[in-house]
C-alpha cells in the first residue's frame, strides 16, 4: 500500500531529523497519517453521514409525517441516529491498521500507546463526530425541530460525540482481533453510551423548553474530561490484548 509505505519512510526521516524523537512528533505523525488515510477513503467518511440521513428519513415514514409529533421526538431521534451512525464507523477505527500490521508498529514505538491511540481517536472524531454535529441541524429542520435549539443540537453533538468516539474506541480495540466483531462491538459499547445520550438529548430538550442548557453541556464536558483521561489507558490495554491474542 503506497500510503503506509509513504508514512513509514516519513517516520524514518522524522527519526533521523530528531534523534530523541519527542512525543509530539509521534503524535503529530499519527494524526497526519490517519487524516491522510481517511481522506483517501472518502466513502468511509461519507457513509456514516448518509446513514444518519437515511435513518432520520425512516422515522417520519414509519411513525407519522405530522410536524407536531415529529417536533416532540426530534431531539431524541437525532441524537439516537447520530449515535448509531458514529457506532457504525467505529469498527473500521483500528481494522485497517490491524490487517496491514501498522498497529503492531504503533505498539512497538517507544512513545506511550495511550497517547498515540488518542491521536487516532481524535481523527475519528474530526471526520465522524464533527460532520455529524454539523449535519444534524439540517436534519433537524426536516423533523420540524423547534427554532432556537439548532445551535445547541450541534454543540451538544460535537461535545458528546467526542466522548462517544473515546468510549467506542475501547470496544473497537477489544474486538479488532475478532473476525466478526461488529455486532459484539455494539453490544459492548451501547450501554456505555447511555449517559452521553441522556445529557445530549437533554440539552436539546432544555433548549426547546427554554430551560438552562449550560448544566447539560457542562455535564457533557465533564463526561468528556473523564473519558479523555481514562479511555486512552483502556484503549491501549485493549489493543495490547488484541495484538497478543
Amino acid at each position, binding site marked *: 500500500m503506497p500510503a503506509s509505505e509513504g508514512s513509514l519512510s516519513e517516520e524514518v526521516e522524522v527519526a533521523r531529523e530528531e534523534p530523541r524523537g519527542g512525543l509530539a512528533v509521534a503524535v503529530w505523525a499519527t494524526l497526519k497519517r490517519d487524516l491522510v488515510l481517511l481522506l483517501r477513503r472518502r466513502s468511509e467518511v461519507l457513509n456514516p453521514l448518509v446513514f444518519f440521513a437515511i435513518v432520520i428519513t425512516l422515522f417520519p415514514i414509519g411513525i407519522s409525517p405530522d410536524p407536531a409529533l415529529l417536533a416532540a421526538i426530534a431531539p431524541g431521534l437525532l441524537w439516537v441516529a447520530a449515535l448509531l451512525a458514529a457506532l457504525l464507523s467505529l469498527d473500521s477505527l483500528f481494522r485497517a491498521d490491524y490487517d496491514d500490521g501498522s498497529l503492531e508498529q504503533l505498539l512497538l514505538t517507544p512513545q506511550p500507546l495511550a497517547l498515540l491511540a488518542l491521536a487516532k481517536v481524535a481523527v475519528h472524531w474530526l471526520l465522524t463526530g464533527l460532520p455529524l454535529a454539523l449535519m444534524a441541524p439540517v436534519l433537524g429542520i426536516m423533523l420540524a425541530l423547534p427554532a432556537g435549539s439548532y445551535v445547541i443540537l450541534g454543540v451538544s453533538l460535537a461535545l458528546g460525540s467526542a466522548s462517544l468516539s473515546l468510549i467506542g474506541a475501547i470496544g473497537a480495540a*477489544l474486538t479488532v482481533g475478532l473476525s466478526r466483531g461488529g455486532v*459484539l462491538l455494539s453490544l*459492548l459499547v451501547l*450501554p*456505555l453510551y447511555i*449517559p452521553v445520550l441522556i445529557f445530549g438529548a437533554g440539552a436539546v430538550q432544555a433548549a426547546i423548553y427554554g430551560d438552562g442548557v449550560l448544566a447539560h453541556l457542562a455535564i457533557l464536558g465533564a463526561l468528556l474530561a473523564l473519558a479523555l483521561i481514562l479511555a486512552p489507558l483502556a484503549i491501549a*490495554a485493549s489493543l495490547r*490484548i488484541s495484538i*497478543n491474542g
Partner: protein
Amino acid sequence: MWAFINKLRSPKWFYAISARLQPWFWAAALILIVTGTIWGLAFAPADYQQGNSFRIIYVHVPAAFLAQSIFVSLAVTGLVFMVWKIKIADMAATVMAPLGAAMTFVALFSGAVWGVPTWGTWWMWDARLTSMLILLFLYLGVIALRGAFASRDSASRAASVLAMVGVINIPIIKYSVDWWYTLHQPATFTVTGRAAMPMEMWLPLLIMVLGFYSFFIALTLMRTRSEILRRESSKRWVRELAEEAN
C-alpha cells in the same frame, strides 16, 4: 503475606481449601434462605399500603444487591488477574458472570411482577428499573466478549478490561438515569441509616440478603472448583485425583 499470596496463586491449594469452606456456606445459605422465606412470607406483617404484594421485596432486594455486588466482584477479580496474573481470580470471574446476569434478571423480573399491583403495569421506564436493565446488558457484553475469543488468555484479559470499564461507568449510568427520570421509591434498605420499615419486616429481609450472599459464595466456590478441574485437567494432581475417584 507473600507466602499467602503465593498460596492463593496455586489452584491446587484453592481446590483443597474451598472443599473445606464450601459446606459451611451451603449450610448457611440453606438455613438463612429457609428461615428468611418462612418469616418473610408467613410471619412478617402485611404492608399497610401494598398489602401482601410487598413480600416480593424478600426476593427482589437481595437479588438486586447481588446483581450489583457481583459486577463489582467481576471488576475486582479482573484487576487482580491483570495485575498479579492470579489464574484463580479469572476462573472465579468466569463463573460469576452468568450468576450475576441471572440475579439481574431475577431482580428485573420480580420488579416487573411487583409493578403490576403497585403501579398497574409490568414495566415502567423508571430510573432504577432502567439502570438494572442496562446492568443486564453490561453483563451480557462481558459474557459475550469472553465467548468471542479463541484464545483463553485473551478472552480473560479482554473480559477483565471490560468489567473494569463497566464498573467505572455504573455509577455514572446510575446517576444520569436518576437525573433522567425517577418514579421509584427511595432506597428501602440501608445498613447504616435507620431502617425505613418496622423491625419485623426488616429482619427477615436482612436474613434473606445474608442468605443470598452465602448462596452466591457457595455456588461460586463450587463452580470455581469445577473450572479448576477443567482448566488444569492436564496437570498431574488433577489426574491423580481422577484416578483416586475411579
